[in-house]
């Protein structure tokens, strides 16, 4: 099948699956489990019996099959077996409580059924997301932590080594280069993106073609990081002196009398050429959010400032910017998170050579090229430690904004 067709089919299955899940969970809840009508005591008792089979019997059989096929042959009285037994016990207890919650004894009113259904509904909707996040996000965090404390034993298996991976990593100059570069990225990219975003938001607000300009500036947001890197590699492209320069940087540079440069290999400065790509992408994001915030400023406070004698710059910096400060902080920290995780751009443009290594690319290097899961996981943990406090702060700020 043609890849484009495959993509379309994937979208159709995904969207269809979501809609189907939505429809089915409502159907299950409103028709079978908790119909929006009163039930006599006899009806409720029948449903309770059927419900018990449905809620406990089906998962019970599945679990029993799993145990028979997977755990019994390996023995269930080791650490892993006991852990999964505890999980199973908790699951069964939860289902038992859920049954009591859904299928009560005695007569049931329609109101009781509706209110119970509405309490279960959000959890039912969230269930796939919770499972997916647990499986692909929460579990890997703990697994990575475990891996970062072990090392591969030649010939198969692994062994506990404590903090040895971290110590080894701290001795590597490449790691410190990545740390240093990440810190520079951390300062430059959020600052420039927010600044440009704010400028563009303010400047495009009052002009006729402002929305077209905004659309153009927002468009890089729709390009993948790798795609953007390819575009910018062309911008920085270098040809021998006697050929026409196809990279715009060198074209300008040669036009003003310079020799063609391999921009991406210039030590230290090449970091900033990489950052330009991310700034180019994130300015659109900052602009959209800040533009909305600027529109939310009461017009009368600006007029009052004009009457008070403030010039355009004073109005902007003393009246408008302070009023949208909370939004600026949220935008800044959100971009900070993107920056800490930056990988694709460096991977696609320099692969960390010529002094441009960053943490995420360092991790990839260790994990998938050197096949050293210990040090790779250790660097992943470092990234997570750096991201977490900013993430927590960001979520708090965003919540405050919403209130």
């Amino acid at each position: 099948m043609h890849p484009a067709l495959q993509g379309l089919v994937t979208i159709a299955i995904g969207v269809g699956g979501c809609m189907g899940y939505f429809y089915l969970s409502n159907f299950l809840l409103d028709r079978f489990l908790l119909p929006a009508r009163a039930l006599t005591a006899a009806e409720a008792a029948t449903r309770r019996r059927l419900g018990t089979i449905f809620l406990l019997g089906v998962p019970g059989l599945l679990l029993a099959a799993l145990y028979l096929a997977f755990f019994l042959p390996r023995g269930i009285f080791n650490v892993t077996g006991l852990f999964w037994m505890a999980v199973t016990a908790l699951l069964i207890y939860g289902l038992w409580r859920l049954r009591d919650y859904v299928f009560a004894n005695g007569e049931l009113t329609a109101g009781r059924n509706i209110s119970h259904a509405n309490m279960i509904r959000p959890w039912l909707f969230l269930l796939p997301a919770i499972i997916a996040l647990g499986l692909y996000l929460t579990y890997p965090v703990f697994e990575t932590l475990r891996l970062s404390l072990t090392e591969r034993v030649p010939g198969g298996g692994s062994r506990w080594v404590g903090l040895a991976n971290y110590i080894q990593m701290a001795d590597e100059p490449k790691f410190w280069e990545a740390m240093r570069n990440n810190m520079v990225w951390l300062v430059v990219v959020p600052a420039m993106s927010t600044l440009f975003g704010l400028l563009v938001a303010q400047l495009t607000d009052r002009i006729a073609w402002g929305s077209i300009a905004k659309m153009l500036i927002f468009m890089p947001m729709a390009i993948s990081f790798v795609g953007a890197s390819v575009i910018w590699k062309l911008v920085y492209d270098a040809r021998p002196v006697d050929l026409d320069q196809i990279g715009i940087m060198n074209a300008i540079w040669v036009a003003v009398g310079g020799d063609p440069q391999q921009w991406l290999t210039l030590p230290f400065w090449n970091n900033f050429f990489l950052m330009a790509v991310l700034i180019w992408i994130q300015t659109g994001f900052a602009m959209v959010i800040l533009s909305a915030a600027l529109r939310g400023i009461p017009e009368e406070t600006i007029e009052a400032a004009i009457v008070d004698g403030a010039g355009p710059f004073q109005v902007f910096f003393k009246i408008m910017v302070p009023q949208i400060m909370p939004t600026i902080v949220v935008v800044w920290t959100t971009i900070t998170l993107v920056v800490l995780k930056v990988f694709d751009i460096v991977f696609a443009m320099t692969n960390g050579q010529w002094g441009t290594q960053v943490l995420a690319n360092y991790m990839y290097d260790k994990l998938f090229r050197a096949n050293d899961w210990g040090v790779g996981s250790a660097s992943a943990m470092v990234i997570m430690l750096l991201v977490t406090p900013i993430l927590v702060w960001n979520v708090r700020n965003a919540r405050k904004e919403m209130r």
Partner: protein
Amino acid sequence: MAGLKLTDIAKSYGEVEVLKNINLDVSAGELIVFVGPSGCGKSTLLRMIAGLEKITGGTLEIDGLVVNDVPPAQRGIAMVFQSYALYPHMTVRDNMAFALKLAKKSKSEIEAAVKKAADILQLAPYLDRLPKALSGGQRQRVAIGRCIVRDPKVFLFDEPLSNLDAALRVATRLEIAQLKESMPDRTMIYVTHDQVEAMTLASRIVVLANKGISQVGTPLELYEKPQNEFVATFIGSPAMNLFTGEIAGTGQQTSIKLDGGGFLASAYPTNHDDMGMKVKVGIRPEDFMPTEDPGTGFSGTVDVQENLGEVTLLFFVPVTPGAEPVIAKLPGIHLGMKGKKVNLTAKPEKVHVFSNGLSLLYR
């Protein structure tokens, strides 16, 4: 100190004309109130005086200087906005000091000005609070304080009380009146749609309607001698009753035969040529007096009565269905009037006569 002179002021947004031919002389120390129905351009006129809207025609003079193209801050004006427009990120102190800081006044000067304004407005305990920690009335006072510290020649108020609840509105109205009294040489221009505010505060009222000024005068002039039907019905509540009729006798007093049949005498003088002229007769509800004589004035059947204690409001069955009911406001308590036929008349000096919408008094 500073007068205002508006000459042929006009405002249009592209093709749409909002205001035209506005001529007004304000002498120093007056409190002028602009009133008018929604959309009559009263706020626009105020904003043009403030310099927030461009004047598209005519000239505006403040203190003898043409200020059409002078930026707001240099016009010597200060403005209180409807929503107060306090700077939410600044404390009360900083809100009041902002203009002075921009004007690069010295620290001690700013401190003194803020303290003085805070004392006048009883804001001293709140100086370090943010606006969001203040009540509506306090915010309003901060907005006024922000004007006072600048010591402007002209104060502009844009519906300053409309966001307050009824009780606070009365109290703040009195405070503004006292403020005016404490600064007798400062000119104030006040926009409102509330005629009680207009009547109580104004030294002169400017009634705006139909893109222009309908009448300028003291509150009682507007009430007693309205220049036209619009002012007559706009000022006073309930609104003035209007009857159609024709002039049946002329002279120092005019006799009018109402279309309903009765005769009324008006103190408006007319001359012989006016005989038979179609006119409208206006009588305020509170000027009606009951009479036994069915041949004079208005007679009708009471449809609804409202007993307010101090007065009784009578609503009469309209002569033509759907027309505005005639309303009479009689002092005291009159019970059991519903369904009765009542004859009403008024003193000649309380009977207003209009022809083509204009008062015969001002011909």
